């Protein structure tokens, strides 16, 4: 039916539209509301940055695990009990060094290793970060509070395919003797994205 034949006087609010589609799918017997409960639980309780933090802490204390993680991130994450979705077939872990800062983004949409890093924060999905971080990386990092010395090389990774990336931050100084759990507690979500150092 051509658009001009539709007798519609106002655009429904976004909440009205969500309610409408959820109810319509339920009415088809598709059990959408059940899936909403299940998937919302996963988004809040299972897909959390704590997963990536635990992987990083393990890599800091176990050189063999670190080697496996850098060689095949997906297998190493699975080894720690963190499976990735079927369509994330590859995880590349990006090792920071004193003179190397990796940072991830998705200029086309919002792709992230969300089962390990958590669903991406609002700013990661905003037009500003997506448009600017590839072209003005150092400026953007500085605005976000990470003022890198001029001799630090910035490596930006644009998630434009189904490979996922996670930054492996450097272990902070003066953490000798800390347990793996204590170390994991130091690792922030933003350091896994690469816009912060620890």
């Amino acid at each position, binding site marked *: 039916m051509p658009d001009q034949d*539709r007798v*519609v*006087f*106002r*655009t*429904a609010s*976004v*909440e*009205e*539209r*969500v309610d*409408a*589609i*959820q109810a*319509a*799918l339920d009415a*088809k017997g*598709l059990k*959408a509301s059940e*899936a*909403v409960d*299940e*998937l*919302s639980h996963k*988004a809040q309780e299972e897909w959390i940055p704590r997963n990536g933090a635990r992987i990083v802490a393990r890599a800091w204390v176990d050189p063999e695990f670190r080697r496996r993680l850098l060689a095949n991130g997906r297998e190493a994450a699975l080894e720690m009990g963190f499976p990735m979705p079927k*369509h994330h*077939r590859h995880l590349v872990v990006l090792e920071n060094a004193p003179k190397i800062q990796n940072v991830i983004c998705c*200029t*086309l*949409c*919002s792709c992230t290793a969300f089962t390990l890093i958590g*669903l991406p*924060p*609002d*700013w990661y*999905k*905003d037009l*500003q970060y997506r*448009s*600017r*971080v*590839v*072209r*003005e*990386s*150092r400026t953007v990092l500085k*605005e*976000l509070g990470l003022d890198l010395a001029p001799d630090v*090389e910035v*490596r*930006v*990774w*644009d*998630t*434009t*395919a*189904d*490979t996922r990336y996670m930054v492996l931050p450097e272990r902070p100084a003066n953490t000798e003797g800390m347990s793996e759990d204590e170390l994991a507690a130091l690792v922030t*979500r*933003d350091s896994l994205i690469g816009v912060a150092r620890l």
Partner: protein
Amino acid sequence: MDGIHDLGGKQGYGKVRYTLNATAFHNAWEMRVNSLYAFAVRSGIFNMDEYRHAIERMEPAHYLTASYYERSLTSLATLCVEKGVLTREELESRAKGAFPLASASAAGRSNSPTRERFKPGERVRVKLDFVPGHIRLPAYVRGKVGVVVGESPAYPFPDAHAHGIHSEDEPTYDVRFQAQDLWPNGCDPALVHVGIFQSYLERAS
């Protein structure tokens, strides 16, 4: 398609609205949208490439003014209507108002007939492909030369997968570019890496 979604390197968007410990969701409906689209993918109503493409097909003015989860909702609804799962009339009657959807899809394509296998360290050029349908390639690397630093397992080819066209799965290459080669005299120095499907690449001398 050279759509509004292809934001890398665009200017004028202003400062990143960064806050420490920023959250993914700000309202309950946002989490519901996120779950509903994931549910639709899991149920086989559409795939991730179709989902991305339906966001890209939104009218530019709507795309720029919609929140992230409104874009997600628009793609979900567009595809449910296009796939015949729901009708627009049903959605608008339930929502008691207009339910904006994305514009219609143009033609997709299958893999390039000339695909090469590349090894880390090899130089590659991004082909000058201008297509009306889905392509998972940021325009800022089109025609540019970079160096392969990694190869992925084979994935479904987005230009076909978003359009229900048969294709072979193919690997993607992580290609390293110098920011200066992408935006000469108009960028911060950096190495910019892009995951690029094999069909989009050719060997550079």
